[in-house]
């Protein structure tokens, strides 16, 4: 079973592109897509109306493909009360199964804490964008060390650090001791050895396959795992086994 832990509603919000995304995913035998929307314009600091509209795109996608798409709620924690209300709506009314945080503020900001507490209460994972960039981070962009700090503060939270932290050598080592953090393999970085390194440092149980489609193609992302020199059992855990276990948290 393949579960893609990191997919986005197509930028620009074109619904026909959603069909292309799902059709392509099915061609690669992907069983479920965990989708969040960053809105139509991918604004780094989205307004309340922008992130609520983004979540309604995901709701639409879930309605279109009810057994296929798992929704992740996207909010801007800087609008704390509205973000809490929207997260509640997404989980309780829209039946989404995760929280997505991007780059409006670093995940160590106290405004993030109530959302993490809610995620613990709802038993849903938090997918947190993280990257440490040699070219310079955005002001609100979490680095892997931030994710580790947050995870240690909330040991009951199930946190997925996106993109293995971007610079995966730093990312993987940064979260090594934060046992409630998993990493996803998504993104345009396809460097030889990255999967083997993550398995060696974290163990396959702490890695989930993600693509970041439609910014990437499923083929390159799935074959990162399939081509890695790790055991078949480890590949199976990464491609879907671990995420299946996480998504059953609510059941």
């Amino acid at each position, binding site marked *: 079973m393949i579960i893609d832990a990191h997919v986005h509603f197509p930028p620009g919000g074109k619904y026909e592109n959603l069909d*292309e*995304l799902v059709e*392509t995913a099915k061609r*690669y035998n992907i069983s479920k897509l965990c989708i969040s929307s960053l809105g139509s314009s991918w604004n780094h600091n989205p307004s309340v109306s922008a992130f609520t509209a983004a979540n309604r795109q995901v709701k639409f996608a879930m309605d279109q493909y009810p057994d296929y798409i798992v929704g992740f709620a996207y909010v801007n924690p800087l609008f704390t009360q509205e973000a809490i209300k929207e997260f509640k709506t997404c989980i309780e009314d829209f039946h989404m199964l995760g929280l997505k945080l991007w780059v409006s503020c670093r995940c160590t900001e106290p405004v993030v804490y109530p959302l993490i507490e809610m995620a613990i209460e709802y038993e849903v994972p938090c997918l947190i964008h993280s*990257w440490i*960039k*040699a*070219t310079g981070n955005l002001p609100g962009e979490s680095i892997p060390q931030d994710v580790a700090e947050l995870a240690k503060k909330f040991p009951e939270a199930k946190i997925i650090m996106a993109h293995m932290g*971007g*610079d*995966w*050598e730093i990312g993987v080592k940064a979260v090594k001791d934060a046992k409630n953090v998993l990493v996803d393999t998504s*993104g*345009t*970085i*396809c*460097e*030889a*050895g990255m999967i083997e390194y993550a398995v060696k440092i974290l163990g396959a149980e702490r890695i989930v396959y993600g693509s970041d*489609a*439609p*910014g*990437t*193609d*499923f*083929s*390159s*992302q*799935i*074959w*990162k795992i*399939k*081509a*890695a020199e790790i055991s078949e059992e480890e590949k199976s855990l990464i491609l879907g086994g671990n995420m299946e276990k996480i998504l059953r948290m609510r059941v």
Partner: protein
Amino acid sequence: MIIDVNTFLGEWPFRKLSGDADTLLRIMAKCKVDLALVSSLNAIFYKDCEEANIWLKHILQRSKSLIGICTINPYFPNSLEHLHECINEMGMVGVKIHPSYHGYSLENNNVIGQFFEECSKAKIPIIVPLRIQDERSHHPASRIPPISASQIISAARKNSDLKIIVCNARSNEISQICMKNNELNNLYIAFSWVQSLNFIEKMVKNIGSDKLLWGSNFPINYMEPMLRQVTESRIDDEDKEKILAENAKKIFPIERSI
């Protein structure tokens, strides 16, 4: 047949890599890649690329599946003489250049102009990787900006007899380059970076497959995911054959390889 037009052998100073010939040949066999056009990774960091090219030639003698591509810094003294040695005596079939790592731009001037002219006269194509590693992951001691698509377009326009193959380009950079495709018959793209959803299908639909090739960027990148982007795309078999081998056979004088 499958030809990988963008591989390296050698050491990368910032991370342990398996950039040896045995590993390359093993992975080629696993991926059913028949030929690899190989340049030296060390040459990116050497001031004098000649030593790296000689080392590479020695290594490549181990297998006829490995075809030499020399690395030249046009600004290094005696580089044109060494270029001709690489082509005529060492049997190398193309030139790879690294303007950002070697500290120059492709803006037209006498040095670049003469170098391109010599390559053109020798009917030797030039490979230009826009980057080697994602610039966001660069080591603090070596933060090297990528080559811009506009520099490539300008160089292709000014040197219309010279075949230029662009590697390691993101989808948006490829789109930018291919907007000029109709007017630039000498500019080619080798898919050797992670592309966006169904990008290869869209490219073939928009510009055809005559100007497209494939490369892995081994050993920096995994080879198989790069290859699967092409083999698993929904394009005609004829287009796949062109991208994976036929266009490379036309562009590179592989028969010259010693």
